[in-house]
């Protein structure tokens, strides 16, 4: 508890991180209160088509079918955050497992797994995600899995490097000599010490996942039942000359959310890895 408070206090000393946290809390609150704030389904017509923003019925204008842009943005926040977090969790499961196995066992296993990781890093991830979603069908689960499937290599590399570093440390060797099974050594001794860089990279990955999700739904590969920011921008393209607000506001929503998560991630980096932070900041 005390340690958590210390970490928090140290995080709050980074102005950029605090700004990010404030914006992020705003987005999360918006996602939570969306149904209260806009009780009508975001797909429903609530106003005349092409109402400009700040003008009567709707805050941010309406689209070509009379849908409320503000309501769509609020509901889109739920989708973006949900997909961002769950696909990062999927990437964490794959990446940490692969990295841990490679780093712990080393040798042949490591070599084979790292070749595999390298291959995944070479192929263009976004195109792979397009292919996966287009083939398996654009459902929420498939989008999450596709983003997870293209994001994990970075986490695998990081976890492997941490495991290689910690593997030879005395306290780990001592646990091995005591005859503890590999799983116990990994979970009780190595992983807890490798967790902070993983948290930092994971938090930044939420931002990149949100960007991939928005690009997928911009291309028409989002879940057709869920309102998302990328879909809104994609739909606005044909009427950009009449209705600038339809593309501008959802884009600002993506931009602010991604910026906020990046700022929080950097703040976490400075807090959790003060020793490494200066080097990692550029990468």
């Amino acid at each position, binding site marked *: 508890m005390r340690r958590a408070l210390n970490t928090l206090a140290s995080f709050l000393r980074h102005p950029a991180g605090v700004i990010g946290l404030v914006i992020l809390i705003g987005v999360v609150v918006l996602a939570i209160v969306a149904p209260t704030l806009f009780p009508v389904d975001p797909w429903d017509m609530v106003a005349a088509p092409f109402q400009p923003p700040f003008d009567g019925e709707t805050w941010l204008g309406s689209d070509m079918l009379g849908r409320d842009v503000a309501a769509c943005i609020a509901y889109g926040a739920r989708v973006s955050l949900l997909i961002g977090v769950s696909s990062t969790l999927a990437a964490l499961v794959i990446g940490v497992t692969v990295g841990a196995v490679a780093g712990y066992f080393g040798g042949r296993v490591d070599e084979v797994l790292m070749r595999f990781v*390298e*291959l995944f*890093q*070479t*192929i*263009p*991830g*976004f*195109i*792979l995600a*397009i*292919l*996966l979603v*287009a*083939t*398996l*069908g654009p459902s929420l689960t498939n989008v999450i899995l596709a983003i997870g499937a293209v994001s994990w290599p970075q986490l695998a590399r990081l976890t492997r490097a941490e495991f290689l570093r910690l593997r030879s440390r005395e306290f780990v060797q001592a646990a091995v000599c005591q005859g503890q099974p590999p799983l116990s050594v990994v979970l009780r001794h190595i992983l807890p010490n490798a967790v902070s860089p993983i948290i930092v990279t994971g938090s930044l990955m939420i*931002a990149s996942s949100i*960007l991939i999700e*928005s*690009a997928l739904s*911009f*291309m*028409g*590969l989002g879940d057709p039942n869920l309102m998302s920011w*990328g879909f809104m*921008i994609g739909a*606005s*393209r044909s009427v*950009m*000359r009449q209705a*600038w607000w339809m*593309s*501008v506001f*959802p*884009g600002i929503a*993506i*931009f*602010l959310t*991604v*910026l906020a998560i*990046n*700022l929080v991630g950097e703040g976490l980096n400075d807090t959790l890895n003060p020793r490494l932070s*200066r*080097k990692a*900041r*550029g*990468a």
Partner: protein
Amino acid sequence: MSVVAITRYGGRLSAYVLGAASGAVKIIGVILVIATFNFILVHAAPGDPAQVIAGQSGAADETLLRQIRSAYGLDQPYLVQLASSLKKTLTLDLGYSYRQQRTVLSLLLERLPATLLLTGTAFILSLVFGTALGTIAGTRAGKWSDTFFTIVSLLLYALPVFWLGLMLVLLFSVQLNWLPPFGYVTVGVEMTTWQRIADIAWHMVLPTLSLAAVYLAIYARLMRSSIIEVKQQDFIKTARAKGVTESRIVMHHLLRNAILPVITVAGMQAGGVVGGAVVVETVFAWPGLGRLIYDAVLQRDYPVMQGIFLIMSIVVIGLNLLTEAVYRMVDPRISVRSVT
């Protein structure tokens, strides 16, 4: 002669030969893996694989489906199918687009130049301007210009590429009417070769800017931290103590060392640039592979999607090999094998 012997006696040239050879091995490996993956994907897709390959075009046509089944050997055991699809891919037979009524390869080759032009230009521009901005920021760490560039790159880094493209169109094409909003070349106008080149360049401004912006931000941030790190090392102090001029220190000592991690990361980002090209081409109706994959997705034209996946992966490896070659040029200490 053994590999070691070649490296030892052949000098630089043989290093390049080795690099090219390992590049070729890499490309063939990736082609095989992607072909396998494509094969699995067609069978993992819900429904009849023949339907999947036909796309929406042949949904109800039993003759076409029968034709596809025999062409792809879909009635044979999986391993036989896989072997024949690998063989086909290696001979660059990428199948047939039943939607477009053309071979996939001819479609891809027609679109490839436009994509190479766009990604290549954006890749080089982002590297050049990113390192330049990063150097300015890094050598003036703490001053206002450094703060300014740092904030700008932080903001750029959070922009969705496709939205940036649309906003540039809104501003420069719709509002100001300075630049063309989409396309590759002005249609229906007689032009000399030079006019045509100028026209294409004019059309390229907005797509290239949108694609390059994010990577420019990444390289600028990286270059800045790298410069700050190298700046504190002893050989810089020595050079300064010897009375070497400041500009020479930056150009000959600082830049050359600080740029190495940027080149490494640029190689790793190549896949991202190519992926970004997909959305940028979609926004700007740029007649390349990205635009083609967008249309293929709309029409569920799987052979085309899979072909693009393969070709784009090869493009990425090409960019990777290019950055490796640049790395070796900048840092002769590194031998071929240790660059990954």
